[in-house]
C-alpha cells in the first residue's frame, strides 16, 4: 500500500542520529573546517557510543550494504533504508565529520559487501578506507594502472592512489589494482592493505574546497607485499568486477543521503533567516504571487524532496532485494546536483557569504557530493545506457 513516509519503527533511530549530529557535529563544524588535517578527537567518543547502538548512521556504513539471501516476506523496510535515514541526519550535522567517523569508511562498506567470513572476522572493528582513483584515472576505474603480481603467497602491489578519504586515519585501505592491464576490468581486484605495510607511503594530504574535516590522502605503493588472503572476492580473472561495482549500487544512495542532509541544513537555516527578514513560505498561495525569495525557496524545497524520495526508493528496493542500479544512479544524480544548487542558492538568498554562518561552508561541502562515488556525468551515463538500452561501446 503506497506510503512514502519515514517508517515509524525508524523514528527513534532518526532521532538519535539527529541528536548526535546536533551535539557532536554542529558544535565542531567550523573548528575542523578551519583546522584542516587536525584529527577530530571528539568523534572517538561518538564512535564508541554508536558502536553500542544497533544501527549507526555512519558514512558508507560498516555493515549495512551486504546483500543477504533470505526469503522475502512481503514489504521490507530494512538495513538500507535505516542507514540512509541515519546518514541524512548525520550530514544535516556535518558531512566532513561523518566521513571522518572511525570505522565507517567506504572500505568498510566494500569489506561488508564482498568479504568472506574469515575476512569479515579479521577486519571486524578496523577502520578501512578505499583507494580507487589514480592521478590519471578517475571515473574510468577500469583503466587503473596500479598492478598486483602474485609472488608465492603474496601479491606485490605497485602504483599511486589519490583521493583516499580518511586514508591516513584508517587502519587499512582497500586498494584496487589490476592483475593484468591487458585484460581490462575483468582483471581488477581489491586488496586490503594494512597502513603499516612496508612500501605503503603517504605522499601528502590534500587541501580542499570543502569537507575539510575529512582527510584526503595520496599514497604511493612501492613493492607492497599483501598476503593473498587479503584479496576480496574471487582471485580469478574474469569474475568479480560486477560484484565490486555492485557495492556502488548500495553506496550511491548513501552519498545521495549525504547531499540531502547538508541541503536540508541549508534550507532550514535559510527559512529561519528569511522569516526573520519578514518573508514567510506559504504552501497554499501560488509561487507567482509570493516574494521572489519565497518562490525560489519553494522551488529548492521541491527539488530537495524529489531527491530525498528518489534515495528512499533506491534503498527500499535494496531492502526488498530488487535491482536498484537505475534508481541508485537517479538518486545520486538528482541529489548531487540539487545539493549544490540549494546550498549555493541559500548563500545568495540569505546573504550569508561570511564565516559567521555555516551556510557558506555547506555550499563548499556540498560540491564533492556531485563528484565522488560517480560524478553527475557518470550517473547520467549509467541512467542513459539503461533506459536507452545501450552498451558502453555504443554510448561512450
Amino acid at each position: 500500500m503506497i506510503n512514502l513516509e519515514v517508517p515509524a519503527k525508524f523514528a527513534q533511530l532518526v532521532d538519535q542520529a539527529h541528536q548526535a549530529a546536533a551535539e557532536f557535529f554542529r558544535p565542531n563544524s567550523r573548528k575542523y573546517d578551519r583546522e584542516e588535517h587536525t584529527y577530530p578527537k571528539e568523534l572517538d567518543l561518538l564512535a564508541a557510543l554508536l558502536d553500542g547502538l544497533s544501527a549507526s548512521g555512519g558514512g558508507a556504513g560498516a555493515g549495512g550494504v551486504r546483500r543477504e539471501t533470505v526469503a522475502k516476506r512481503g514489504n521490507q523496510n530494512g538495513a538500507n533504508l535505516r542507514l540512509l535515514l541515519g546518514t541524512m541526519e548525520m550530514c544535516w550535522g556535518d558531512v566532513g565529520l561523518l566521513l571522518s567517523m572511525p570505522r565507517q569508511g567506504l572500505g568498510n562498506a566494500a569489506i561488508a559487501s564482498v568479504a568472506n567470513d574469515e575476512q569479515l572476522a579479521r577486519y571486524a572493528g578496523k577502520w578501512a578506507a578505499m583507494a580507487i582513483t589514480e592521478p590519471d584515472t578517475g571515473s574510468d576505474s577500469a583503466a587503473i594502472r596500479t598492478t598486483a603480481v602474485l609472488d608465492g603467497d603474496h601479491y606485490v602491489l605497485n602504483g599511486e592512489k589519490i583521493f583516499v578519504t580518511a586514508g591516513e586515519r584508517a587502519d587499512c585501505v582497500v586498494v584496487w589494482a589490476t592483475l593484468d592491464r591487458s585484460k581490462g576490468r575483468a582483471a581488477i581486484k581489491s586488496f586490503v592493505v594494512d597502513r603499516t605495510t612496508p612500501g605503503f607511503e603517504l605522499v601528502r594530504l590534500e587541501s580542499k574546497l570543502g569537507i575539510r574535516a575529512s582527510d584526503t590522502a595520496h599514497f604511493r605503493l612501492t613493492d607492497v607485499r599483501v598476503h593473498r588472503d587479503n584479496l576480496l572476492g574471487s582471485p580469478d580473472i574474469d569474475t568479480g568486477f560486477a560484484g565490486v561495482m555492485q557495492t556502488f549500487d548500495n553506496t550511491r544512495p548513501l552519498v545521495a543521503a549525504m547531499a540531502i542532509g547538508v541541503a536540508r541544513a541549508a534550507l532550514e537555516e535559510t527559512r529561519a533567516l528569511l522569516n526573520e527578514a519578514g518573508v514567510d513560505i506559504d504552501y497554499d498561495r501560488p509561487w507567482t504571487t509570493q516574494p521572489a525569495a519565497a518562490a525560489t525557496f519553494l522551488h529548492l524545497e521541491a527539488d530537495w524532496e524529489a531527491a530525498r524520495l528518489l534515495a528512499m526508493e533506491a534503498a527500499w528496493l535494496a531492502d526488498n532485494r530488487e535491482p536498484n542500479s537505475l534508481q541508485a544512479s537517479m538518486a545520486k544524480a538528482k541529489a548531487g546536483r540539487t545539493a549544490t544548487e540549494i546550498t549555493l542558492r541559500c548563500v545568495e538568498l540569505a546573504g550569508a557569504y561570511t564565516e559567521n554562518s555555516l551556510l557558506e561552508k555547506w555550499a563548499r561541502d556540498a560540491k564533492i557530493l556531485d563528484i565522488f562515488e560517480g560524478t553527475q556525468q557518470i550517473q547520467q551515463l549509467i541512467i542513459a545506457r539503461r533506459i536507452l538500452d545501450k552498451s558502453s561501446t555504443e554510448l561512450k
Partner: protein
Amino acid sequence: MGAALAVLNRLAGASALDRFGLRKPVERGVHEATRVGFTAAGRVFTAVRGRGVSRLPDAPERGLFDLTPTDEQRMIRSTVEKFAAERVRPAAAAADAACAPPVEVVARAAELGVSALGVPEALGGLGTERSAVTNALVAEALAHGDLGLAVACLAPSAVGTALALWGDADQQATYLPAFTGENVPVAALAVQEPGALFDPFSLRTRAYRTPGGFVLDGVKSLVPRALDAELFVVAADVDGRGPALFLVEAGTAGITVEPEPAMGLRAAGTGRVRLARVSLPASAVLTGDYAECVRLSRIAWSALAVGTGQAVVDYVIPYVNDRVAFGEPVSHRQGVAFKVADMATELAGMRLLTYRAAALAEQGKPFAREAALARRQCAEHGMRIGDDGVQLLGGHGFVKEHPVERWYRDLRAVGVVEGIVLV
C-alpha cells in the same frame, strides 16, 4: 476491458448502483446547435431530501515505506492504461483539432467508473474509503493517453468527489446519484479565473449574501466542456471573507458560456463561464474545506503531468534510438542521451512527490506542504520534459505529425490551472 469493468462493478456491489435511481435527463437546451454566447443548458436536477450525509472514511494508516500499489489499484490502473492506449491516444489529435472530446471516449470513461470511484457505496458509487492514490493512478494512466482528454473524462468526477467530500445530505441526494451511472452529467469544478497572478485564495468572483441565498458575479476561465456543462461547482469569495464552493446548475439565469480555446487542453473543450447576478438558493453552498479542494486539485494536476511526462519519455526513447545522424543513432551522443537521462530522473521524482501527497491526503494527514511541492516540481519539470521532447525530435517535434508538440502545449497548463480535477 469487459473483464475489468466487471471487476469494478463487483467492487461497487451491483445492488448499490441504482439505489437512488438515476434521474433521466430532461430535454437538452435549445442552444446546442449554435452554442456560442448562449446560456449553458443541461438536465434539471430535482431537489431531493437526503436521508443523511455519506462520507468516505480515511484510508487505513500505514506504518512502512512502500511503493507497491494494492492488487485493486493495479487492476484499475491496467484497465485505464488499456483504455488510454486503445481509445484515448488514437482520438487525441482529432480532439485537439476539434476543441472537443469525442462523446464515445468520455462515455466509455464513465462506463469504466472513473466518476464513481470517489462516491461512497452508500450513494451508489464505488468508494469504500478515501482513494486519492487510486485517483492519482487513474489520472496518470489517462494522461498517458492524452492530457486534454483526461481532463475531459475526469472533470465530472471532480464534481462528484467534491459532493462526496463536502456536500450535505440534500446536496448529495440531489446530485450524486447521477455521477454513479453511465449517463454521467457534464460537470466542472470552476476555480480558475482569467488574468495575471491568479490566486485561488484571492478570488475575483464574488458571492453576496441575499435574504434568499446568494448572488454570484464573476468570470471563470478554462472550464472543461463548458458549452455542454450541466452542473458547475464554482469557487467564489463570500462577502470578502474568503472563498467557498457553490453548486450552480448550468441552466440558471445569468450564466453565459463561450468557447475559450487555449494553447493546450483543447481536447477538453475549454470555455469561459460568465456569471452575471446569478441567484442561488442558500442550499447551493458547499460547506467544505476550500483549501483542501485546492490542494487535492494540485495533486491531480501533478498526476496528470506525470502521465503526460511519461508519454513524452516513452515517445522520445525509440525516436532517438532510431534517428541516425552523422552515421549513428543520435542517442549515442551524450548531449542527447544525458537529456533523456535527466527527463527520466525528474519524472521519477515527480511521480514520488505526487504519490506521497496523495497517500497523506487519503490517510487524513496534513498534506498542504506535500501537495505544494508536488505541483511545484510537476509544473517545472513537467514543462521541461515537454520542452526537451520537442527539442529532441528537432523539426519533427514542431509539426503535428508527432504528438510531442501537443504535449508541449498541454504541459504548460500544470503551472497555470487550478481546480477542474481532484484526487
